[in-house]
């Protein structure tokens, strides 16, 4: 039987050819990064996702579902960028075994377990669920050395029915930014400790710590150690990261080779601010929620880890009053933006020569 141009067989072939052409063009349209990315043979990446600030009134009732969606998107995005994620079940088992609940302290035993499980990198992400938005703060770090590769923040709006799509896109953007800004760093490592808050809640302190790390990574090519790794090592060594004594400083010098520790306090300027019963304990449920930020002051000091002496001290004062612009318009910055701007300013000042600014 001959096939003519008008026969059904020819039409069938034409349809098949069209579908093949469409498929090939679709394959060609996959992101370049995904095509380039080949699984990294050197080791796996453990994804740690923590809900740091779950605000009331967000409308998201199923937090477990949100977390699962976040982990799924982060895993997929990491794989597309050449990473080899550690299976979620293994990661969860390790977290449970070492009681890693909020990612603020990563003890050496947990990092050793990761090494045994074949994971040499960590993707640490904190998810802040607000009334009208979700913020994702992430950083990648080397589980063996504790050095940070990159740090970035993404946000998405929570309004509308399509917030899950926005959230998924934000997760992918976060991983893409982290992959793009990851670069080798050299020199004596900086050892910033987690920000110590007075009059602010734990989530705000974590946001401030993230802003500090982003400022440090953006400003210099120096290697930066992760505060969670430092805190975990200090606690395991019997030292209190908030009251760093000589033994704690010596541990930082010997274990991480850090010549200086960077200590930062964030203190509210509200005189009537509800505060923890023991002020030095820092975070409390009665303190300011992370979505609203009162005026504050930041006090940074660098401490010589060998002598235990203060090498330099810097502070800045930050107002958070609405700014009145032209035609009576008032504008105010989001807490994260305000914190990031203050932290960059403080960091830049601290890099200038001189002891005090």
């Amino acid at each position, binding site marked *: 039987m001959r096939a003519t141009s008008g026969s059904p067989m020819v039409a069938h072939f034409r349809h098949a050819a069209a579908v093949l052409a469409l498929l090939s063009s679709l394959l060609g349209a996959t992101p370049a990064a995904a095509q380039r990315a080949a699984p990294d043979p050197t080791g796996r990446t453990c994804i740690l996702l923590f809900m740091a600030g779950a605000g009331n009134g967000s409308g998201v009732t199923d937090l477990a579902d949100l977390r699962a969606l976040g982990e799924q998107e982060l895993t997929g995005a990491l794989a597309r960028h050449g990473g080899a994620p550690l299976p979620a079940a293994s990661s969860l088992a390790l977290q449970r075994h070492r009681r890693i609940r909020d990612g603020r302290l990563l003890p050496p035993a947990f990092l050793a377990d990761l090494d045994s499980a074949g994971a040499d990198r960590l993707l640490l992400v904190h998810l802040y669920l607000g009334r009208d938005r979700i913020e994702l703060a992430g950083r990648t770090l080397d589980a063996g050395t504790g050095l940070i590769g990159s740090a970035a923040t993404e946000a998405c709006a929570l309004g509308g029915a399509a917030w899950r799509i926005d959230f998924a896109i934000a997760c992918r953007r976060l991983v893409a930014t982290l992959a793009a800004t990851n670069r080798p760093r050299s020199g004596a490592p900086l050892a910033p400790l987690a920000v110590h808050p007075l009059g602010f809640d734990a989530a705000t302190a974590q946001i401030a710590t993230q802003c500090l790390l982003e400022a440090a990574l953006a400003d210099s090519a120096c290697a930066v150690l992760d505060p969670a790794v430092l805190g975990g090592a200090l606690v395991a060594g019997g030292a209190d990261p908030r009251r760093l004594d000589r033994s704690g400083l010596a541990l930082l010098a010997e274990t991480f080779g850090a010549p200086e520790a960077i200590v930062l306090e964030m203190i509210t*300027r509200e005189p009537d601010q509800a505060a923890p019963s023991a002020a030095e304990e820092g975070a409390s449920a009665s303190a300011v929620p992370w979505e609203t930020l009162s005026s504050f002051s930041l006090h940074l*000091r660098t401490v010589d880890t060998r*002598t235990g002496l203060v090498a330099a001290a810097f502070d800045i004062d930050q107002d958070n009053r609405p700014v009145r612009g032209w035609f009576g318009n008032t504008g105010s910055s989001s807490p994260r933006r305000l914190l990031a701007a203050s932290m960059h300013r403080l960091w830049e000042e601290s890099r200038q020569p001189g002891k005090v600014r």
Partner: protein
Amino acid sequence: MAYRREIRIALALGLALLAGCAPQTTHFIHPDVDLSFVKSCAVVPFHNLSADRFAAARLQPVFLAELLQTEALDIVDPGATLAACNRLGLGSDTPLTPEQVVTLGEALGAQAIFTGTVEDYGQRRSGGDQTCALTASFSMLETETGTMVWNAQVSRDGSSFWRKLFGGDSASQHEVSRRAVRDALESLF
């Protein structure tokens, strides 16, 4: 003649205004102590007598930064100082006894201990305006015998002659604190 008298009156009024805005600092330095022997020091947490519960926590790092700026002394990290205070059972609400000063000095390897007390901190009404104000006292105790070798009480606010004359906001609380501490330390170094 009348012109000169007007100038004198204006000058007198100006001086009176300036005097009204001037910071008030009183200080004491022990006559029998040679401060040149003191090389290292520690700053213990300040006492707070003001209504603002974080006033002492805010003033202490300002004091530390200003003390560091003098480049006169090595300063033990406040974290280590706090850890030593906790270990020795020293609270920030009670003044240190000479014995405690000696013990703390030995623990920290410091030759002097600085203490501070915030007496008044926050907004104050000056004339018709609100202004930021601070009243605080600072002491330096040498750690061989626990003796007080320096004490200064300073009171400052955010108003100024030019602000009174032309208007304008008060200096910020941070700026007032910084100036007050600087005034106090100028009596020591």
